[in-house]
């Protein structure tokens, strides 16, 4: 963005470029992170399945799917400075891959129900490979990564960045939705793919299956979180943050920012794809309404609410916003839209670092008071 408006300062207002390195924390403070992670993991893996009723557990699984997408957004946007407002596309690719497999399995050699209704007579060639569960799962991750890799290569190599890139991802989301809706016979149109009953021989409506799915989603999220943290600590992660804060300087130092950005964008797309594939058996539907511009932006805003510069914040934001949405739209449907709009404005204006940022500020205040005492 700054390349196109050279007069605006390049430093993100929320990320000081020359912050002094924080003093090394004492040994007990360094255990805080792992301890918190273990506590949350125990809560999610043991307490939640035991305490929550199946309906609430299913909802939580859905939020955790969104949290996986949020983690990818946190990586690309918070750490890499690439505002991705079309993650719904990758989520949808993963979701449709899974949905197509389930649909074909359901039909058991016949045509899926909606194709019969649309007057399709032969199974389209595009669908054929999705009869294999292995192919569907691999595609759910590899497909989005390939698409993001292609788009990233085309866009970042030409040094298109900032707002331009954000607008392009948004346009991709808009175009994808129109394409999916228009191809009724191939994609199920507006209704999308739904009516799934069985996953790998398990009854999807059974509480036990749903509990198992929840655990799978939670474990996947935990593993991805740890992986993303490790990635950020590596040389690659340092480079990614450097690209966010001064892309041209990184290039002058002899690195290739386009590669760093493309890889990160592809990783975040892969996360979204995996989340989509998990989402389908959990929620039981994938449709264009779940992956357009609006849901994509909602996820970005959830990450902003949680705290874009913190991976844990991104996850927290997705879960909190998911729950808030459920709670408020159960009570007053229209009010939720006002509340959501107002919330974005307040968060962006007053707390651009989100909930995680507020926690960080509180911690700093506390430690500075201790230091004075």
């Amino acid at each position, binding site marked *: 963005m700054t390349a196109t408006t050279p007069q605006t300062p390049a430093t993100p*207002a929320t990320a000081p470029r020359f912050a002094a390195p924080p003093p090394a924390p004492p040994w007990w403070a360094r255990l805080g992170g792992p301890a918190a992670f273990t506590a949350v993991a125990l809560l999610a893996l043991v307490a939640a399945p035991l305490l929550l009723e199946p309906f609430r557990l299913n909802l939580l699984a859905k939020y955790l799917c969104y949290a996986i997408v949020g983690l990818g957004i946190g990586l690309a946007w918070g750490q890499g400075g690439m505002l991705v407002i079309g993650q719904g596309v990758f989520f949808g690719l993963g979701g449709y891959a899974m949905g197509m497999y389930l649909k074909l399995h359901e039909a058991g050699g016949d045509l899926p129900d909606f194709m019969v209704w649309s007057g399709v007579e032969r199974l389209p060639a595009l669908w054929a490979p999705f009869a294999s569960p292995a192919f569907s799962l691999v595609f759910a991750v590899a497909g989005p990564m390939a698409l993001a890799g292609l788009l990233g290569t085309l866009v970042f190599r030409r040094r298109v960045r900032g707002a331009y890139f954000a607008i*392009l991802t*948004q346009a991709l989301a808009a175009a994808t939705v129109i394409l999916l809706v228009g191809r009724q016979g191939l994609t199920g149109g507006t209704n999308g793919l739904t009516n799934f009953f069985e996953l790998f021989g398990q009854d999807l409506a059974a509480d036990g299956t749903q509990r198992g799915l929840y655990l799978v989603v939670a474990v996947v999220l935990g593993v991805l979180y740890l992986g993303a943290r490790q990635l950020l600590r590596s040389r690659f992660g340092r480079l990614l943050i450097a690209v966010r804060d001064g892309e041209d300087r990184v290039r002058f130092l002899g690195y290739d920012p386009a590669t760093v950005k493309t890889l990160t964008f592809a990783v975040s797309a892969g996360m979204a794809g995996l989340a989509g594939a998990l989402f389908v058996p959990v929620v039981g539907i994938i449709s264009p309404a779940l992956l357009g511009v609006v849901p994509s932006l909602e996820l*970005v*805003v959830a990450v902003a609410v949680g705290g874009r510069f913190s991976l844990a914040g991104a996850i927290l934001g997705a879960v909190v916003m998911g729950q808030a949405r459920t709670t408020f739209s159960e009570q007053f449907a229209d009010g939720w839209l*006002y509340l*959501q709009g107002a919330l974005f*404005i307040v968060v962006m204006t007053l707390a651009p670092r989100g909930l995680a940022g507020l926690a960080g500020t509180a911690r700093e205040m506390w430690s500075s008071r201790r230091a004075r005492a």
Partner: protein
Amino acid sequence: MGAVINQLPIGLSIAAVLLLIALGLTFTFGQMGVINMAHGEFIMAGAYTAYLLQDWAGRQAVPVALPVAFVVAGLMGLVLERTLIRRFYGRPLDTLLLTWGVSLLLQQLARDLFGAPNVQVRAPEFLEGGLGVLPYNRLFIMALAAGGVLAIWIYLNRTAQGRRMQAVMQNRQLAAVMGIDTGRVDMRTFFIGSGLAGVAGVALTLVGPVGPALGTYYIVDAFLVVVAGGLGALRGAVAAALALGLLNSYAEFWTDASLAKVVVFAAVIAFLQVRPRGLFVLRSRALT
């Protein structure tokens, strides 16, 4: 061949509407680095202005609404700029999310005020019929866009205010040093840019129904026009709007409506391979 000609007025009028919308965006984006997602809702506000004026002006609502919608949408933009966007200069990506929140609020407000179903604005008598394949209403939209471009060109190049606006767009700090009140210029830019969205909204009532989500159909395409046209350049916006509008309508015609947007998107990506900063760029030696 006949189809090519029949499709031409549709493509040109889409291009005209896109142009009116994109002109405002290219100025706010080019000058202030603000990505205003609420711009689409200013279009909607313009369209509802025409709808409301029907009670008073009857079938002359559309011509009467043009100046009124300009002021209404312009004032909305002005309020947005003064209250919120002003705090966000230098954080362009954040303005995108901020203004999206505003756009959600405005859409829901419209739903509560005017109801969720679409409403119709009746076109004035003198726009019924047409010249051969050219319906008068589409001709009117094209004339409106042409007039808009001309007025903007005169404003930018022949008035002191406009020249100050260009100066701020080219180099904000230098312009400020020369004694230009950049805050004032920003306000004017936002007023005019948003006002143009209102005019586009009135024009849209001639070709379709009016609903709370009216703006969302056009805003993504209008942003693509800005990306392809280059920032802050009038001729870039004109050329890109024409190209994308025509491409859109012909792609819809030759493939089908669902593929057209994909074709347009691919075309923009391909174009960026050749001109990564858009068609016309303000040259600058500054680096990030």
